């Protein structure tokens, strides 16, 4: 290490104080200072200023510095480049603003301690000549304009539609206007709010509530370590507001985001209650296990997952996509960063909101596997015996007696209720504000026995002892329980229950569930309905997220922020398998067994940032430097109890045999970061940042990595030459370049570890040890260089907004677990090897199709084309076989140079050897016979071996898309969300058992059309039943199981009605709605869920091994606000 910090001895002594202790001291000191200040009315502050022929913006800058206030405005809108003269000597700010702004038709108001400026319409100021002439009806209308918090809005433009006449509201939001007739329509508009048109009719008083326009370009959105207006951002960030996904009856907020963000693919692989979704930013794909983005909640980079977060707590979500946006998160940013901001109370408001829904979940008919009925199964088994020359078991002799038999899909599924309650209380003054959200969700699963409950609380409190100091404490405990047990995937109950004999009765004559369910010649199988009912699964998770921060303003624009964040969690999973439960192949468990897994983790992050914002003339600077430290520790233990005497006592202590294991995982990260945002005249934007990360996961020689980025933006629409193009209301070009890293390599891979390998000698234990892994001690950082260009174009008064991005990402020194020959004694080595490239296009369009006062229709559409390709791999063969598929050919996915990661891998199925001639003339496997599966001899060596397995499909979609339509008509609102993928394939591995020809399972009814003889070859998909012939088709996964997975999913349709309420009543908002989640999926995929994937790893995508069905949910909900 050449770079080394030298510290003064005093500092070295101080360094012994732990970071957290220092943090507490710092807060104490800050509080002490805080007492010195007194809040003053902003407008009463005095200002002395003298300026000649100076731009308004510069004058505002001076005022900001003197009066320690902050203005918010769009230079463009208010015309801040205009030059004026002003002289003021110790004048009150209020008076001064009046002098400066009024002649230039600029109004102001105070919003959250800042002064917002906006332009008055010219028309409103000059009385229109026509108005004087039309005097026939004139009627005076008065009223008040408020925001949704019932605060008067000053400066709102009120215009009589179709005329030039109008006015603006006063400081309280009140207005008065004269209208010519009853048919007059008034248009109310205000920057940052949605315009509203109101027919006057015979009213004389009009009270109007304007709603905030979240899509406003000047809205501040959350970016890494700060906020920025959409206008000024030169990187690629997608945002969605909490309000946009309020009503969806689901437990996961990620489910609500599906289809709403360009470049973000969100897939629901399982319907298990409370289970998370797979989120992939820009087709993020990694050769390592994880391609998940980094989640940051209120500035806290969390470690414990997002599935237990109450969606109602969320104010907004920003997804950082390009390297310029993410590089400040350095080594964890390669897969994108998701910033979640929770709801805070605004000063001066008090509100109580309650929302709730009740839903019923039901498995849709589409995609249910069509299994053989009792009659069909008995017939099949009879034929099987006959074809094998065996005696037909009497059970199968008379198939007709069975009718449809037991439908095991129906037997293990049910209609399940779901309810959610969320109560939010917010109140605040200038000095103190708090927002508390309490939630309770309970969701029974549609599969017997499963269910999820979540109790959540979040208290976000801010304390502002004076105008220089802000202290915040966010505390969010959650407690979640579930009773879910292995239903998904190969060997999961869902798949196996389907294959249970339809001849076996579900219930005994007395109505109780039977214990076992199999017919002669089948695996011993329990009655899975009984197993699901009787099996105990008691899983609990407690999680506390907390942030404590203090921000101190030294000088106007100079802030120091320090924060301590904690993410801690505790989970306990207990399973008890009693003697009335069992598994296939065993039948009922003869002796009960149990397991108890417990884990505790704690991650703390300390961040200290210094932020300085300064405008000098036309130059605007915003600089940030910081240092952060994070440390994680997890302690996990697992106890297995077996040989219980009976089912009566289930705790581990009742077990006859107990085994236990435990482990500890730790990592730490120390980082330095810096960023500078600069803009010239608000239209030339530059942003540069760098982060330097040191991680415990790398050896001492390669511990530190640097992650720089730069981005440029140019707002063309502010240029003079664009002024005449009226159709274009906003146009910005962007370009960015940056480097991010990846530290998902496990905690100790650079250290060869030695662990236990015990033996026994002569009847006593002999403690032994062995080296566990082949360790690359010089392993270093992976680098992801990403280039992004984009444009934002708003047209027709922001009624049509486009955003386009193209990106290209090159990964080099890929951190990759490379397989090595087992002859080395080790299976693999984690090292830097190989390279990947990614590129893609993203387009999102949002249009305001109809924008009338009583009818509004908006459409948001996005589409993303993501591609990836493997450039090089370390293996000498440059190929990696992976995935959960058949072990016979090594896996179900292949990664090979020149192709996308994890392509679907298998045999090319060519049907069956229909007759002897076909058999004699075709390449064969050693076990092939007439009537068995015929595969393509890919390597043309004349025989079929594993070497003929090849790429058969692509699990990556050609494009993904989403569309949301919202319509508001008077009090009614309607929304529909669609999402889908196109061009990806699924290998339906569950057909290994669902079409098994051995007679040991019930199978798809389709199997009836199998090869019976050369004369009766069937459809070619299913082969002969003869003994010893079924292995190839069953175990050699291939194109016989491959399907197109393109789909269009109608995720949600909601219809709501908001009751018109009198503002004077306590009730401010009352809305009811009905919603259907997962309405329908349009797809040719025969399985239930085209988004399924056994594995979330990029090297194991696109495999359907059977999964918990995703229910359709019908719900009714209510939102009440006080």
């Amino acid at each position, binding site marked *: 290490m050449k770079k080394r910090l030298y510290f003064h001895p005093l*500092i070295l002594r*101080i*360094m012994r104080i732990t970071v957290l202790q220092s*943090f507490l*001291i*710092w807060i104490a*000191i800050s509080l002490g200072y805080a007492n010195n200040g007194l809040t003053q009315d902003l407008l009463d502050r005095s200002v002395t200023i003298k300026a000649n022929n100076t731009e308004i913006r510069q004058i505002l800058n001076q005022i900001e510095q003197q009066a320690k206030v902050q203005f918010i405005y769009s230079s463009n809108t208010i015309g801040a480049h205009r030059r004026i003269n002003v002289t003021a000597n110790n004048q009150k700010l209020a008076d001064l603003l009046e002098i400066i702004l009024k002649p230039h038709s600029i109004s102001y108001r105070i919003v959250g301690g800042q002064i917002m400026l906006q332009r008055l319409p010219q028309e409103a100021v000059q009385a229109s000549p026509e108005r004087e002439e039309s005097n026939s009806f004139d009627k005076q209308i008065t009223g008040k304009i408020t925001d949704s918090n019932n605060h008067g809005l000053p400066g709102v433009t009120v215009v009589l539609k179709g005329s030039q006449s109008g006015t603006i509201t006063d400081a309280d939001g009140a207005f008065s206007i004269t209208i010519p007739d009853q048919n007059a329509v008034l248009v109310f508009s205000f920057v940052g709010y949605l315009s509203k048109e109101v027919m006057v009719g015979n009213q004389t008083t009009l009270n109007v509530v304007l709603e905030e326009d979240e899509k406003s370009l000047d809205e501040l959105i959350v970016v890494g370590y700060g906020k920025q207006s959409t206008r000024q951002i030169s990187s690629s960030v997608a945002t969605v507001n909490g309000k946009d996904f309020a009503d969806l009856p689901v437990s996961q907020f990620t489910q609500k985001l599906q289809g709403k963000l360009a470049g973000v693919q969100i897939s629901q692989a399982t319907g298990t209650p409370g289970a998370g979704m797979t989120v992939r930013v820009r087709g993020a794909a990694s050769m390592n296990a994880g391609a998940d983005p980094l989640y940051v909640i209120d500035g806290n980079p969390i470690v414990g997952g997002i599935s237990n977060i109450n969606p109602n707590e969320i104010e907004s979500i920003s997804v950082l996509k390009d390297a310029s946006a993410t590089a400040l998160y350095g080594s964890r940013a390669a897969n994108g960063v998701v910033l979640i901001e929770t709801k805070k109370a605004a000063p001066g408001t008090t509100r109580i909101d309650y929302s709730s829904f009740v839903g019923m979940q039901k498995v849709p008919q589409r995609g249910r596997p069509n299994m053989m009925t009792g009659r069909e199964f008995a017939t099949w088994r009879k034929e099987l015996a006959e074809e094998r020359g*065996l005696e037909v*078991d009497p059970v199968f002799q008379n198939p007709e007696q069975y009718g449809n038999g037991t439908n095991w899909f129906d037997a293990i599924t049910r209609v399940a209720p779901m309810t959610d309650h969320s109560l939010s209380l917010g109140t605040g003054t200038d000095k103190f504000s708090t927002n508390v959200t309490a939630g309770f969700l309970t969701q029974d699963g549609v599969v017997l026995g499963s269910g999820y409950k979540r109790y959540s609380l979040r208290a976000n409190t801010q304390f502002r002892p004076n105008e220089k100091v802000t202290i915040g404490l966010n505390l969010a405990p959650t407690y979640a329980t579930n009773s879910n047990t292995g239903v998904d995937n190969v060997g999961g109950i869902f798949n196996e229950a389907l294959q249970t004999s339809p001849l076996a009765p579900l219930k005994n004559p007395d109505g109780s569930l039977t214990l076992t369910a199999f017919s*002669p*010649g*089948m*695996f011993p199988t329990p009655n899975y309905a009984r197993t699901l009912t009787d099996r105990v699964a008691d899983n609990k998770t407690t999680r506390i997220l907390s942030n404590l921060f203090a921000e101190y303003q030294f000088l106007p624009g100079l802030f*120091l922020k320090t924060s301590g964040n904690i993410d801690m969690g505790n989970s306990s999973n207990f399973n008890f398998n009693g003697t009335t439960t069992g598994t296939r192949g*065993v039948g009922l*468990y*003869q*002796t009960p067994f149990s397991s108890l897994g417990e884990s505790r983790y704690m991650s703390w992050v300390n961040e*200290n940032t210094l932020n300085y914002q300064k405008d000098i003339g036309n130059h605007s600077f915003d600089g940030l430097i910081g240092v952060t430290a994070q440390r994680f520790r997890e302690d996990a233990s697992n106890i297995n109890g077996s*040989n219980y005497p009976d089912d009566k006592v289930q705790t581990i202590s009742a077990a006859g*045999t*107990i085994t*236990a294991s435990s*482990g*500890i995982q*730790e990592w730490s990260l*120390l980082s330095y970061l810096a960023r500078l945002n600069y803009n010239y005249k608000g239209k030339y934007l530059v942003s540069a940042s760098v982060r330097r990360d040191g991680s415990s996961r790398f050896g001492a020689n390669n511990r530190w990595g640097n992650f720089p980025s730069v981005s440029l933006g140019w707002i063309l629409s502010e240029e003079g030459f664009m002024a005449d193009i009226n159709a274009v209301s906003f146009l910005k070009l962007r370009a960015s370049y940056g480097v991010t890293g990846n530290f998902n390599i496990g905690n*100790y891979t650079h*250290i*060869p570890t*030695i662990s236990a*390998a*015990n*033996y*026994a000698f*002569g009847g*006593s234990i002999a*403690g032994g*040890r*062995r*080296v*566990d892994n082949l360790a*690359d001690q010089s392993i270093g950082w992976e680098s992801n260089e990403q280039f992004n260009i984009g444009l934002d174009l708003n047209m027709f008064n922001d009624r049509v907004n486009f955003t386009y991005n193209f990106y290209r990402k090159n990964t080099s020194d890929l951190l990759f677990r490379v397989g*090595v*020959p*087992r*002859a*080395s*004694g*080790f299976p693999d080595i984690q090292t830097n090897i190989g390279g990947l490239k990614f590129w893609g296009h993203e387009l999102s369009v949002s249009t305001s199709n109809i924008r009338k006062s009583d009818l509004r229709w908006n459409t948001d559409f996005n589409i993303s084309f993501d591609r990836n390709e493997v450039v090089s791999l370390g*293996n*000498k*063969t440059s*190929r990696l076989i992976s995935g959960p598929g058949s072990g*016979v050919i*090594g896996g179900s996915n292949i990664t090979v140079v020149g192709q996308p990661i994890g392509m679907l891998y298998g045999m090319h199925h060519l049907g069956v050897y229909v007759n002897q001639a076909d058999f004699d003339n075709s390449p064969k496997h*050693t*076990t092939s016979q007439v009537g068995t599966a015929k595969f393509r001899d890919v390597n043309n060596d004349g025989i079929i*071996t*594993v070497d003929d397995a090849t790429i058969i499909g692509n699990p990556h979609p050609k494009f993904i898309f989403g569309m949301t339509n919202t319509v508001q008509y008077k009090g009614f609102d309607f929304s529909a969300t669609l999402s889908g993928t196109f061009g990806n394939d699924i290998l339906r591995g569950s057909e290994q058992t669902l079409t098994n020809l051995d007679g040991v399972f019930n199978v798809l009814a389709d199997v009836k059309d199998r090869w019976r003889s050369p004369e009766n070859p069937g459809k070619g998909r299913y082969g002969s039943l003869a003994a010893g012939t079924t292995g190839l088709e069953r175990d050699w996964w291939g194109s016989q199981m491959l399907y197109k997975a393109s789909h269009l999913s109608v995720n949600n349709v909601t219809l709501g009605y908001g009751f018109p309420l009198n503002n004077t009543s306590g009730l401010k908002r009352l809305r009811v709605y009905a919603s259907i989640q997962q309405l329908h999926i349009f797809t040719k995929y025969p399985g239930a869920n085209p988004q399924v994937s056994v594995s979330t790893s990029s090297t194991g995508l696109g495999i359907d091994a059977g999964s918990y069905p995703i229910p359709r949910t019908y719900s009714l909900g209510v939102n009440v606000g006080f």
Partner: protein
Amino acid sequence: MKFKTIILLTVSAALGSCSNFLDISPKNAVVPSNFFQTEADFTQAVNGAYAPLQSLYNNEASWVMGEMRSDNSHFFYNNDFRSPMPEEIDLFVNGSENTVSADRYYINYDIIARANKIISVIDEANLEKTKSDNLKGQALFLRALAYFDLVRYYGDVPLPLIPASDMPSATLPRTPKEVVFLQIITDATAAADLLPGKAAQEAGRATSGAAWMLLGDVNVHLKNWDAAESALAKITGYTLMGDYAAVFSPSNKNNAESVFEVQYLQGTSLGLASSFPYAFIPLTPDYARYSQGPIGSQSASGSGWNTPTEDLLSAYEDRAKDTRFAASIGFISGPSGVSDTSYVNLPYVKKYQYPHTVFNQTNVNFPIYRYAETLLMRAEVANEKGNLSDAQNLLNQVRNRAGLGNTDAQDQTTLRAAILNERRVELAFENKRWLDLVRTGNAISVMNALGAKMKADPAYFYITPASYSLTEKHLLFPIPFQEIQVNPDLKQNDGY
């Protein structure tokens, strides 16, 4: 100013956090920087090198490849759940994708990697010489044993002798089997010199006797009769147990007849028990009676393997007199566990079934070398060298213990056959038979003949025409195809 100082200090405290902040070592595991130093460390490392033997002999690969592949045993086809991988090996239709034959390959290399590590660093550790010699001798023995297993099943194999440390050293081509044999002889000879005799060694560890036995076995395999004779002659201090059945009893672990056996131990939470006897019991509701253990959940896939063939039953000259018959083979009658078919005198391997307390955790060791085999090997060497009376005497020692009279075989050829058959029944289910058939050149003819007989019998309706069509290729197993995928320098055995 004071304020700014405090800020500075606060930030510095966070900033510096001292260099220790990023130094985190695993708490669950030892790291090499503080291991491979003391005698205790090396003892643990050597114990760790034995550990894969437990996996290997609990693994189906051991009996599927050693016994089921031969004419000694088959599997019981009950039309219910079958596992294709072991069946394909039995039927000679296995390919390089076979996971069972891959397991044997992988586990042997686990032993080799651990032994390599010990052998490469123990001389630098300055341990007391006798301790050091003993530990190093054990490591050399284990390495030789593993390579001998590999070279017989797979032919040419990679021959790593130093620990892999990076990609190139982990990716080696195949070494000709002649070179591998030379290395085995070198290692076994060195081990024999370094190791103490059985009397001076902790029970269950490799001894000089075990090393000489291995060396004898290698030389018998190579038909180096002189070298075999001199190695085997050095195996002293062993006697046959009076009762054949008692040899395998967990109460007689490492008995006077035992030269080397894989150690198992029930009743620990460390997974040191054996479980292979369970695989030999067909699926039956009454299995606890046969396993002599408690009730548990018998799995279909782990049951009904290594079923003795009629051919083996008839290889016993006199089932009544030969105590080995009743000790080795039991019969099951009664309901089966799956269909409502019943078993009628279905033979099963009884040799390893002893009482135990936990389901699927048995306490029996697995014999690798017994003194009875030493005698039979010496008989074979004597016969091949023309010392027929020596051969007869040695053979008769084994026969007499089993309750049989002296051999009738008088000439070299019949004696050769008699010794081979004696090995078949004496060492039945000790995974010797397939290798004996291969090394004596009988595998192809014996197995094809057996296959033809089975195909003609309607009871074996499930045997496909391609089965039991042995050619030279079947004398070796394929290199696991995953090994070739990551190392294209490896060439596959012919025909796979």
